[in-house]
């Protein structure tokens, strides 16, 4: 695995600069059933395709941001700070 990613603060960097934070995973707002809670905590959609995910610029500015990436090709379509994410 080797590709480039653009930190919204620092610009283009090797992906090894960053830590992966996992796919966006909406936190339940109301008390979930145990099954829903387990799904939220332990299950991921793990899509083969385009998804939105969290990234952390570990070896840089230490910002969390969101990327849209194709998991099959590692093409990163865009990256954005959480309040600048384009509507899907």
């Amino acid at each position, binding site marked *: 695995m*080797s*590709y480039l990613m653009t930190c919204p603060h620092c610009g283009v960097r*090797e992906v090894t600069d960053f830590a992966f934070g996992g796919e966006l995973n909406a936190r339940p707002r109301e008390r979930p059933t145990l099954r829903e*809670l387990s799904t939220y*905590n332990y299950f991921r959609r793990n899509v083969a395709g385009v998804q939105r995910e969290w990234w952390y610029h570990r070896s840089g500015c230490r*910002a*969390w941001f969101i990327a849209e990436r194709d998991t099959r090709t590692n093409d990163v379509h865009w990256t954005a700070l959480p*309040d600048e994410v384009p509507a899907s």
Partner: protein
Amino acid sequence: MSRLPAQPGERIDRSTSVGFSFDGKRVEALAGDTIASALYAAGQRTFSRSFKYHRRRGLLCCAGQCPNCLVAVDGAPGVRACTEPVREGMAVEHLNASPSLEHDVMAVTDAVGGPLTPPGFYYKTFIRPRRLWPLYEKALRHAAGLGKLRASQDEREWRTEYRRRHADVLVVGGGLAGLRAAIAAAEAGADVVLADEGPEPGGRALAEGGHERARALAEQARGAGVEVLSSASVLGSFDGLLPIWQASTLHQVRARQLVFATGVVEQPLVFAGNDLPGVMLAGGVRRLIALYGIAPGTRAVVATTSDRGLEAARALEAAGVEVAAIADLREGRTVLEAEGRKHVRAVVLGRLDGSDERRVECDLLVVSGGVAPATSLIAQAGGRTAYDAARGHFALAELPDGVLAAGAVAGAGDDPEPSGQQAGARAAHALGLADAPPTPPDGPPERRAHEAVPPAVSGAGRGKCFACLCEDVTAKDIHLSVDEGYDSIELSKRYTTATMGPCQGRMCQLPAVRLMAQETGQDLERVGTTTARPPWSAVPLGALAGRPFEPAKRSAIHPRHRELGARVMWAGDWRRAYDYGDPQGEALAVHEGAGLIDVSTLGKLIVRGPEAGAFLDRLYPNRFANLEPGRIRYGVLTSDAGRIMDDGTVCRLDEESFYVTTTSSGAGAVEQWFSWWLADWRMQVALTDVTQGLAAVNLAGPRAREIMGRLTDLDCSNEAFGYLDAKRAPVAGVQALLLRIGFVGEVGYEIHFPAAHGQHVWDAILEAGAQDGIRPFGLEPQRILRLQKMHILVGQDTDSESTPYGAAMPWIVKLDKDEDFIGKWALAHAAEHPSETALVGFTLPDGDVPTEGAAVLDERGEPIGQVTSARHSRQLGQVIGMAWVPAALAGDGAAITISDESRRLRAQVMTRPFYDPDGEVLRS
């Protein structure tokens, strides 16, 4: 030392001599020589002993392709003598022969070892009796191999640096095609890097009459701005990132367009005795003559499948070497056997059916078995090859987007430059720098000299016919592996290890595929090739590892710990004082007078903003928004699954600011965790990590208050500065934050202050406490002290399954908080479903201290829990510990059995702190 008259374009400088040693003997060389050319000129013919049979091996390719000339240079093994330039004073030694290259006792394996050492012999011949395997293994390891690493790594002669390079175009291979491609792309405005294995670009042309053209193109490329990397090996292609090893630099090049002009690798022939010194590839012969002015022999025989051999014969004759015979397979004749004990003395030529046999005496056998396109890197980049029956090799069939091929590897004939030009122009076009180049006109197809496809093996039955020189795999071994069922090329590769040696299949992939096809009766397309894997060139692990990088964090006070005789240990990334030689005595000092510990390693975060309290309330299971300024509260962080992640104290500095401490090892993770949720929630909060900026020490003990009084004007009375109060005041003249907390169980002050003053404050406290018998204490006594208080260590007493309920801290979870918080639902569930196991304390009579991790057993001897911490406490005069046990046993006085290797220990459960259970000491 004899050399030919000056050759046009030769690499050596005859006016400058260089001296080095080989196995302790001095060798005279010329500047521009390689180790191998200098040794060959000095008469050396045996360069190494083979991996398994310890057969003599001599120069074969003279181009860094084969394993035959591997030597150690200045103690580092695995250096190719034929490409390594000579340096004054270098110490070159042979590998894998004992006592000497000339007299190698292990050569006996060649004579008698055949039946004993078939493929996989270590699973067969040497496996019984089993108890002798350790002996066998030791002997085999000693016998086999490609040299020894030095036992000690403390002296490193060189370091490598990583270099990232982003370019428009990377051209791999600096022959005429590669140079041409680089020029075409660079002249169109592209930023081009060209990597070439040789000491100067030009490739085959340098030794085969094209040196002037090659040097002119190299100059033109540099003039066009191409970054030319010489003596640079491209190791692999990893999703568009190509590591290139060049001396002490590992370039990591990423380019938008890749042009591979990697050329072809001339192939040897497989026949009896094909590994004898004196058997040399046509290209090797030409390099020795043209680059180094060396006549490779006096009387030569040539065995070839193409014009390459004939060209070499002409070069030999021009150099004054007699060419005694030529066996051209296109005329049906080839070589069946090379004879000689130490070196070729004669060869047997004949037809493949064995007829028309003829023995010719010679001291040089030139072989040329066609070529294999060097497609390995292209395959790694996503290209595909297919068998070309007319040429008898695997040729490029498909290239992915952004990958181009040029020159011989792409099938170009005698003039590779047009294909290079085309590739460079196409790369420039793909980058938007130029119009699409015109498609080359479909002229008359290039006339190609006829080539014959060599047989898998000739002269079988006359002696060992080597398919793989690196790993000493013979044609017979491949036959045997198919017989034993390893009938696919990938299986046979793993079983015989053919193609897995230092040449990385350059010399043996094609011969192995041909043998496999012959043995299985399949055609070559069907047999296919093994997967091309990195590294394409052998590379020292040190070059991949880069600069030794073991970051160590040291507190600002660290030099003092050294001076005080601390035993220093790793704690995460930190170097910490384990103890100062007397852990029990240091712990007792904290109870009896005072102790001082450096806790600068604690993670320290400032959380500030109008919503800081609300933010912490959402992160922690307990409440912080209602904490009074100047007060401190303990906090446990849990995940959304309700599992304990970290713990520490939270102090409210003022209405909008909190000072949060974390465990030493959890500092980074907590900062990351906080900033993640902050990014998600987007609250009006700012985080500042001050872990490195502040030093911290903990002064604790019955005399701590008096000592504090000598260091600060602050009223330290219990009434003015009570337990869990926080104050800001100068200490020893340094502005500090003082937290009255009690991790170690005695009255204590955690003092946080700018790290620059670390040693000053440390010294001042020790001086102020001298009359009270203050002692510095380390991590180990702190562990004893905290265990007496049953204060958990996250990660030691808890694991990824532990909840605050299981860890006996239900009071920390405030499910009645109005706000949602991380872990709320999982903890609500845990509250309704009591934990099956619980963390408890236990005591043992003085004596045995169980190992941490020892099992807790039920009455039938089944494991039902485990010990997480255990220490002898001199203060309490007994052994104390913590363990996870079934909830039914989590009551005071319950008896548990601890199994520690052969010992069975009877322990008694305690649920309250062993020392000062009601915290009276702490609050006093």
